[in-house]
């Protein structure tokens, strides 16, 4: 019995650590974008490296959790849902890492008057990811709170969509090269995409929660 509970506790800690990494990844993304916009290249580079490390750590943790869940036939009824949640939240992490790396590789030129809006977009996207992690944590411990967190994710996702639309409209109203317009839109879509991924996780989570209630 002790062995069973000890193994369970270890796995629980791994899941918690994995979710911590997803949140930290989102915060690193937010900070990284801010440093990029402010032109603080060193700090930005540092954050790109850090988020990359986090992503690798998240991947290995996720694989370890998946393997243990299957090998030890834990939570047989909900194993599929939990794995789905971990994998889809990993996509959020991957998307954030990939976007920050693209900032580094492509060095997009952000117009000065659009910078605050880019910051807002990043903030609401990050908030969506943070609420997504809270929703997942609640799925594990407090089912009743999942709904509240999912609602927040939806809200932030809508926010980022509307900020993204606003930026795109402004960008395309400017008298600049089409290539620059498209480049900026590309980054807006990428940042928005992170919130969209978070929303997809929550759609999955909503169904998984209903299944646990049944």
């Amino acid at each position, binding site marked *: 019995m002790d062995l069973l509970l000890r193994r*369970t*506790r270890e*796995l629980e800690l791994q899941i918690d650590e994995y979710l911590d990494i997803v949140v930290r990844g989102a915060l690193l993304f937010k900070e990284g974008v801010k440093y990029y916009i402010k032109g603080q290249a060193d700090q930005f580079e540092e954050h790109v490296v850090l988020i990359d490390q986090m992503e690798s750590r998240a991947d290995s943790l996720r694989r370890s959790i998946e393997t243990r869940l299957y090998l030890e036939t*834990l*939570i*047989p*009824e909900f194993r599929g849902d939990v794995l789905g949640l971990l994998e889809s939240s990993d996509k959020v992490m991957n998307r954030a890492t990939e976007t920050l790396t693209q900032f580094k590789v492509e060095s997009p030129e952000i117009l000065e008057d659009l910078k605050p809006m880019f910051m807002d977009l990043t903030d609401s996207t990050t908030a969506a990811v943070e609420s997504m992690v809270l929703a997942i944590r609640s799925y594990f*411990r407090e089912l009743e709170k999942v709904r509240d967190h999912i609602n927040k994710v939806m809200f932030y996702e809508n926010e980022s969509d509307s900020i993204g639309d606003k930026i795109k409209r402004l960008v395309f109203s400017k008298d600049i090269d089409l290539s620059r317009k498209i480049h900026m839109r590309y980054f807006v879509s990428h940042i928005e995409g992170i919130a969209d991924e978070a929303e997809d996780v929550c759609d999955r989570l909503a169904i998984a929660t209903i299944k646990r209630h*049944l």
Partner: protein
Amino acid sequence: MIWLFISTGLFLGWSLGANHAVNVFGTAVVSRMVKFKVAATVAGIFVILGAVFSGAGASRTLTELGAVNELAGCFTVALAVALAVTWMTGLELPVSTSQAVVGGIVGWNLFTGSPTDMASLSKIVSTWVVCPLLSAIFAYGLYESATFVIRRSRLHILHLDAYTRIGLLVVGAFASYTLGANNIGNVMGMFVAASPFENLDVFHMFSFSGTQQLFLIGGIAIAIGIFTYSYKVMVTVSDQLFKITPLAGLIVVLAESLVLFLFASEGLEAWLIGHGLPSIPLVPLSSTQVVIGAVIGVGFAKRGRGINYRVLGRIAIGWITAPVAACSISFVALFIVQNVFEQKVVHLVPYKITPDVVRALTKEGIPPGPLAKLSGRPFLGSANFRQALRGQQRWTENQLFLIFSYSELDTIRVDSALVPRVFASAPLSAGQAEAVKKLHRRLFVHRWQVVQSLVDSCDEWKPRSGRGTEILNKELKQRRELLFTAFRIQR
């Protein structure tokens, strides 16, 4: 030959193990919360323990309903029950072994002309209705409490999973114990009256009664059924009946085991009576129906989601079809075994209405006129006696039961020198022993006369009336039975 006769009981045991382990470990095994080998080992061990140590209570009720007193008769009744269960399962009709056994025994009573104890029969039938209801109530309450506690404790899903796993194993063990205790009566209950086993004294440490030896064999048969065939049943049946989460499964099994325990535990019965509470009849139940009741209870706790009300109707149909089918098959099978295979399916009990019997029955409210006409004539076998009585007037089954009880002949010569040995483990009180001594060397032809004489000379032999005296009366009855067995010259 004994093993050949017991074989049908063993087959019933095997079938019980194969078909009913699903009620104990179905959800746990199918949801892969507990490995089948672990589940089968735990279930096998605890079923045997339950059957040997707590099986007496529920099976006694079956013996009271009808004491099948020849091994060939037991064989035939058990075979009839097995056939009825198999036949009805083939027709996809709801069937319960417990209910079929009752039908089988009543079939034996009808065939042999033995009176059916209507009090026992009504006690048994009423439990069929009460038990699914009770388990539904238990399951509802347990589910509500469990969800409240889980919500409050904010348990992690993995911890909840670990506790559910442990719970399924512990509750499964308890449920197996109660299944063995409650249902061994179905398997071996009808063999008790004709048990070929002698009481064993193991190293003067504890005694292992003939009935317990019989139940051990039955328990092993159930365990073999669990090991050999229950997995297939679990995989096939679980989806139809138990498409529920492991946690709900745990609640269902807990509710089921509590109900089975209530209707099998002599200890609990003694405790209830000791505290002035109404006692619960010890009766073999249908574990499947109890489980269905519990599943419905959980369904109600989930605000009526997933309840199939047609299942309820099917249970109610089963209350009638299973006993009627088993009763009919039992009657026909006994006829065939007796007349085609020329086997003795009933030990012919002698009856005689003496003036003493008429007086005693008159006190019980039986009209003496028709009895007096038969006074002095010996009758061999219940059927002959019943026919002669019927020739006089129409009797109710209760009246017949009384007349049969009083008129049964026995030959009992009291030998007070045997008392210390017979009652070595639970000695008689001084008054009781003195009363037996007073009857030394006296010869009785009816058992009730011995009882009457003992009561006349010592109040301590007198059954008490009123609430809380059931256990005392049960003990007195057991002591009287011991006296009869020890002092009986011939039957």
